[in-house]
């Protein structure tokens, strides 16, 4: 019984911290319509700032907290709103997703460069002091956490219902344009709520940092637990968000507490928020289709079958020539660029054409690599096909609950699933000794693809085949359905199109492509380990795909080259994480334009073609008019 009480206290305290984090998320989402993936990153950054000022520079605790929580954090929120978010109001979820993810990467990488990884500790408040309540020892830090969460709940309620500015915030949520016609400046209100959200993130960060070690990634990913809670309130209701946070905190505490006696329960702990999220998603009612503005951007024209085959052949020949000229070292990078390019092609299909977001693509790559490594040790072609099949089935299964919902929920749940996969990949039996799994290279009868050079040609053939396939899909009736769905779901719905079927199949297809690419990727590298497929890798993949461009095959190739060459750039510049800051900034600039690098080059080429043709047409027209 005492155990139970003790676990309950721990659970409630953890739940309170999640509640504080989640309420900040809800406040910013409702007033600006932007879901801030970087919410946890803001909290992490502020917790590190507290450490820097208090521990490293010796400031007294109280002024440090006042400065960080009530000056720096709101300032950061306000600046983020002014510089990044103000341009995004009314744009599709895909764009805001990229920008906030890029912000997450920027903050995380910057923090990793400023505060190099080492053991740091933030002491709990009133460390060592505790009281005994009903035979349970409760530390002062835990009491403060409870008090702060309760105070925030009360203050938020007062703010939103009993002050004019709070009522105005709710008015902006209801109808942004009408609030302007009432004399309200909606941007200023949104800025205020971003400042408030950042403060809440910072408070959560400071409260949780002493209970887990002060490390970059766990604090950043705290937001996952926060949004699992927030989704119970459908990202709108604060009371339900608090309830969700408490339930999640309690589940976690009991899992840890009783984990020693029930082993599976204890091991499940890192995956609990994802499971919680999924159960809620399954029970959420289907999203209503909203008649929104049609935000179709101009995309480059789709090449014909003939020209895509020719381009594929040229690519294979070019890759073969390149591979025979460069050293084995560089040949590896050429092969890696092409294989990563195939993974990018899976995003071209899914995000570029169908408008669906996946932040777990590297997990499918991992499934593919593991399948090849475990089940096809002889390097048989069936291994690659099986990898595709497995990843495809998994893709359809995991995406199904979220596909009924809006694209934002798809982004959220795929990110949560990427974290779930990270936990699954950490199972020791999946990999061999040392957490490494050897993956065989594909053996084809009569063709030698074992050398580095052969691998490059193989990768080029794979890219060309998938590229031609993706373009063929785009030209066909199924591709037209996907494009139509991406343009306007409500129009497709009224035409009787089965949206769930279209989304599920495209998700499975994309996962299958990623899985097959994973099998080849494992072969190219000859061995893989779990961190290759962590959630953060999927994030980088998505951001770089945005930079490369997700509407064209050439964009996928550009993305593949960018991502594969990152380690080299890192070596060349002698930086550790700085390149990710640049990736984040580039992604922010390119987020609004779905065409990215590759697509814009295609558009430019088309324009030049058109211009070159135009004067010729005039020359023809003049003599006709004269005669």
């Amino acid at each position, binding site marked *: 019984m005492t155990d139970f009480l003790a676990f309950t206290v721990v659970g409630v305290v953890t739940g309170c911290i999640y509640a504080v984090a989640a309420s900040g998320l809800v406040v910013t989402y409702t007033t600006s319509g932007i879901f801030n993936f970087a919410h946890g990153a803001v909290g992490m950054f502020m917790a590190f700032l507290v450490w820097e000022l208090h521990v490293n520079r010796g400031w007294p605790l109280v002024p440090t907290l006042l400065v960080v929580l009530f000056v720096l954090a709101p300032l950061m929120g306000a600046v983020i709103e002014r510089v990044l978010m103000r341009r995004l109001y009314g744009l599709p979820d895909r764009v805001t997703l990229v920008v906030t993810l890029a912000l997450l990467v920027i903050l995380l990488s910057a923090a990793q460069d400023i505060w190099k990884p080492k053991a740091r500790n933030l002491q709990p408040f009133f460390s060592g002091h505790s009281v005994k309540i009903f035979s349970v020892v409760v530390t002062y830090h835990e009491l403060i956490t409870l008090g702060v969460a309760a105070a925030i709940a009360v203050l938020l309620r007062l703010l939103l219902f009993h002050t*004019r500015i709070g009522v*105005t915030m*709710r008015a902006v949520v*209801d109808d942004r*344009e009408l609030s*302007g016609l*009432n*004399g*309200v*400046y909606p941007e200023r209100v949104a800025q205020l709520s971003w400042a408030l959200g950042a403060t809440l993130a910072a408070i959560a960060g400071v409260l949780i940092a002493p209970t887990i070690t002060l490390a970059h990634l766990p604090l950043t990913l705290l937001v996952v637990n926060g949004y699992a809670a927030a989704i119970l309130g459908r990202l709108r209701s604060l009371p339900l968000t608090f309830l969700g946070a408490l339930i999640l905190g309690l589940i976690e505490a009991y899992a840890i507490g009783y984990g020693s006696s029930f082993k599976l329960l204890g091991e499940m702990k890192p995956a609990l928020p994802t499971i919680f999220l999924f159960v809620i998603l399954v029970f959420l009612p289907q999203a209503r289709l909203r008649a929104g503005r049609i935000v179709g951007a101009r995309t480059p024209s789709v090449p014909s079958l003939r020209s895509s085959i020719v381009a594929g052949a040229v690519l294979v020949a070019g890759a073969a020539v390149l591979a025979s000229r460069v050293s084995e070292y560089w040949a590896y990078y050429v092969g890696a660029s092409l294989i990563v390019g195939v993974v990018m092609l899976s995003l071209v299909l899914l995000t570029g054409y169908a408008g669906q977001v996946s932040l777990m693509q590297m997990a499918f790559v991992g499934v593919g690599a593991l399948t090849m490594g475990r089940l096809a040790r002889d390097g048989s072609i069936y291994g690659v096909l099986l990898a595709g099949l497995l990843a495809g089935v998994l893709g359809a299964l995991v995406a199904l609950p979220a596909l009924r919902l809006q694209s934002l929920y798809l982004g959220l749940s795929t990110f949560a699933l990427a974290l779930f996969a990270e936990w699954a990949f950490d199972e020791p039996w999946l990999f061999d000794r040392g957490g490494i799994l050897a993956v065989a290279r594909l053996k084809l009868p009569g063709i030698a693809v074992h050398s580095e050079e052969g691998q490059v040609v193989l990768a080029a053939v794979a890219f060309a085949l998938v590229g031609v396939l993706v373009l063929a899909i785009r030209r066909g009736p199924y591709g037209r359905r996907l494009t139509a769905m991406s343009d306007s779901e409500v129009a497709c719905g009224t035409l009787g199109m089965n949206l769930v079927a279209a989304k599920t199949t495209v998700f499975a297809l994309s996962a299958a492509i990623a899985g097959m690419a994973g099998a080849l990727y494992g072969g190219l590298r000859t061995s893989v380990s779990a961190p290759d497929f962590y959630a953060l890798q999927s994030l980088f993949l998505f951001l770089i795909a945005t930079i490369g461009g997700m509407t064209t095959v050439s964009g996928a190739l550009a993305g593949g080259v960018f991502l594969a060459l990152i380690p080299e750039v890192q070596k060349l510049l002698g930086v550790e994480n700085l390149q990710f800051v640049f990736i984040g900034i580039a992604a922010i600039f390119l987020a609004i334009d779905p065409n990215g690098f590759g697509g814009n080059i295609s558009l430019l080429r088309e324009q030049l073609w058109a211009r070159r043709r135009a004067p010729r047409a005039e020359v023809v027209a003049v003599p006709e008019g004269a005669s």
Partner: protein
Amino acid sequence: MSIAPALELIDVHAAYGRIEVLRGVNLVVPPGSVFALLGPNGAGKSTTLRVISGRLTPRSGCVHVGGNHVNGAAPAALVRAGLCTIPEGRAIFPNLTVAENLWITTHASKKSQEDTLDRAFAAFPMLEDRRTQVAGTLSGGQQQMLALARALVTDPALLLLDEISMGLAPRIVADLYDSVSHMASQGIAILIVEQLARVALAVADYAAIMSHGRIQTAGEPADVADALESAYLGSASLEGRSERTTEVGHARI
């Protein structure tokens, strides 16, 4: 010296993207007068109101409110300068209570919350019984009264009404227009966009018919009423031939 008109549009052009909707609108609303802007669907009436209220920046031309050049001003700044707009549809915040809806107006009017509520409830006693009710659960007519109450309490110099009769029973429309003429008698200049031409003409001092993004006829309500039928039917018969009309029609999507 005459007083500056409450509203003046000089050769205003406006477009959504590449589709031009207003092609040189000229319009003058004298201080304290009621002006009815009529015309078929897609003529550009609502777009004209969007331009005046600052929600759409005109491509060229001048918008003068109370003698001040206001092109490109933010909607909120215009509200603070004495412009009140009741946009098309139900112009209320559905998830806020009646009292909260009225409270929002005090950002611009700088009045106290009590004053605002007292005046609104004096004009529309029905609202007082429902002050804590969530506005989205009011009936359509009540919602529109709340919207009008919002206009009333801000003491605007110029009021823009966009199809306040839409979807309401004739009796309720009559009630609403009683309130409109009451506001007009207090000296507020009002620009009314309305599909129910007769209703609007009954309270108007001046009227104009708009089609194809231009003012076609303007003058006394009686004169405009005569021109009304031919304007509507005329533009309807044009629709098949004129490329312009289809463009304007597209703009409303």
